[in-house]
């Protein structure tokens, strides 16, 4: 089949390029310092394509892990490989960052920007090629169902809409690693259901890591669960494991929540040696 009228091809060489790494995220004995103490201390984790739910109590090191994966923090020790690049060497941080999407826990923005301006600005910062920016921005808005609010100023948006704008800026560069730190905070139940289906859609081609306190979000939308406590991974399995464990646990309102508390209880009972 010949290309006609300069039409773009439906399948490009880039879209069928093979990946040359086994895991999008691979950490071995990772240690990250925040202030004086190690917030992440000896963490081992290998994540590929899919939606990975990151659970854990406050202060477990979830946000620190997110920040080091977003290349905002530097590891203090251990090995970290993102998309096959070794991060402490950081030879090619710029190329690596083009393939990462990140929604921080404290999502700050410029109130006078419209949603569309804000996402265009983020697309420029992420070095999305200039001619692709308008399409990428519309696609990102469409994905989070914010197209009709594209011209509203950021400061006029409700909490749920702000979160969605945050997700839109994270996905505008079609990242291979997508890091969402507590994206469901401030969403109403209906929006959370829509958000879960967005997560599942994103997770078919992308390594999505979602940190959350809502165990039911993880069970509903994630392909696997990572439970963190005191800077290391306590449990890494599928949501069904969590539900199954919940049959034995005592504290919690749903079987998944009971599974979560049961796992933490067992981990702490063995003195933190998993």
């Amino acid at each position: 089949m010949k290309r006609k009228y300069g039409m773009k091809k439906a399948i490009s060489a880039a879209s069928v390029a093979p990946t040359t790494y086994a895991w999008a995220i691979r950490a071995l004995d990772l240690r990250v310092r925040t202030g004086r103490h190690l917030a992440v201390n000896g963490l081992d984790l290998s994540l590929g394509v899919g939606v990975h739910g990151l659970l854990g109590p406050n202060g477990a090191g979830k946000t620190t892990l997110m920040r080091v994966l977003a290349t905002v923090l530097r590891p203090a020790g251990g090995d970290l490989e993102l998309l096959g690049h070794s991060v402490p060497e950081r030879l090619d941080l710029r190329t690596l960052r083009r393939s990462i999407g990140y929604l921080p826990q404290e999502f700050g923005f410029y109130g006078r920007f419209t949603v569309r301006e804000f996402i265009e600005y983020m697309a420029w910062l992420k070095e999305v090629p200039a001619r692709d920016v308008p399409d990428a921005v519309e696609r990102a808005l469409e994905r989070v169902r914010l197209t009709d609010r594209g011209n509203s100023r950021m400061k006029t948006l409700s909490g749920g809409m702000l979160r969605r704008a945050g997700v839109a800026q994270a996905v505008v560069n079609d990242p291979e690693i997508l890091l969402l730190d507590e994206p469901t905070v401030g969403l109403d139940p209906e929006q959370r259901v829509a958000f879960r289906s967005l997560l599942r859609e994103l997770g078919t081609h992308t390594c999505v890591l979602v940190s959350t306190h809502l165990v039911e979000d993880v069970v509903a939308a994630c392909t696997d669960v990572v439970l963190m406590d005191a800077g290391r991974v306590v449990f890494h399995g599928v949501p069904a494991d969590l539900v199954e464990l919940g049959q034995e646990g005592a504290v919690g309102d749903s079987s998944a929540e009971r599974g979560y508390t049961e796992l933490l209880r067992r981990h702490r009972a063995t003195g933190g040696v998993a």
Partner: protein
Amino acid sequence: MTAHISTGLLGRYVTGDTGIAPDVLWAVEAHLEECASCRDRSAEVGDVDTAALLARVRTGLDAAVSATAPAPGRRRWLPSRATRWVTPLFVPWLATTVLVVLVALGFDLAAGARNGALPSLVVLLAPVAPFLGVATAWTRRFDPAHEMVAATARAGLGLVLRRTFVVLVVVIPVLAAAGSLVGASPARWLLPCLAFTMCALALGDLVGLPRATAGLALLWVAVVIGPSIVTARMSVLLTETALPGWAALTALVTLVLIARRNSAAELR
């Protein structure tokens, strides 16, 4: 591998022909991993029906997309290209800087009207005048979007230099106007101003821009502004004799910045 895969073989591979010998199959896959042009061809040689269907859908979509008018953009308060150079954060800080220079000018003019013996406050302040703007070019404390921006590909020295450039473009003309009103030649303050800005950027690479600017500004007040006002004599650092020194400092710090440009990608 030098030769590309023949169209016939590629077609068989794409359609999943089981008759391809294992060694040939291995060679084809190894080649496809490396060769973008053969991957590009693989979309065309395989399943003709699917390729035609995809092309048809694409044409239809392109037509539908171009038929829908884009949402009417509202008037922007900053043109989109301007956001590549400044953040909304800059406006109050730059306004403060301009105000400070104007106040210094007021003092100079008032002092000049009385006796004219005091050193010019505009010249004394000139080297640190861009600092309010430079400090806010890259800061977690004042920039609400900092965490997000710091994780993007453009984060680093390039972005900081762009923003610093804007600060200088605003501050230098104001200083030039104020300087000419008090009769100070631009040569006396322009080089110290540039040298100090570059020093702040280099130091900011280590300790963060707000700390770097605050430290240098304190140093400048203690070593130059204070003594100059107390003794009522212009510091030797701001006379023509110090110019070669300032030029050398600017060149040296520029070299340091160039050498460390990659580490700046992790600026805090």
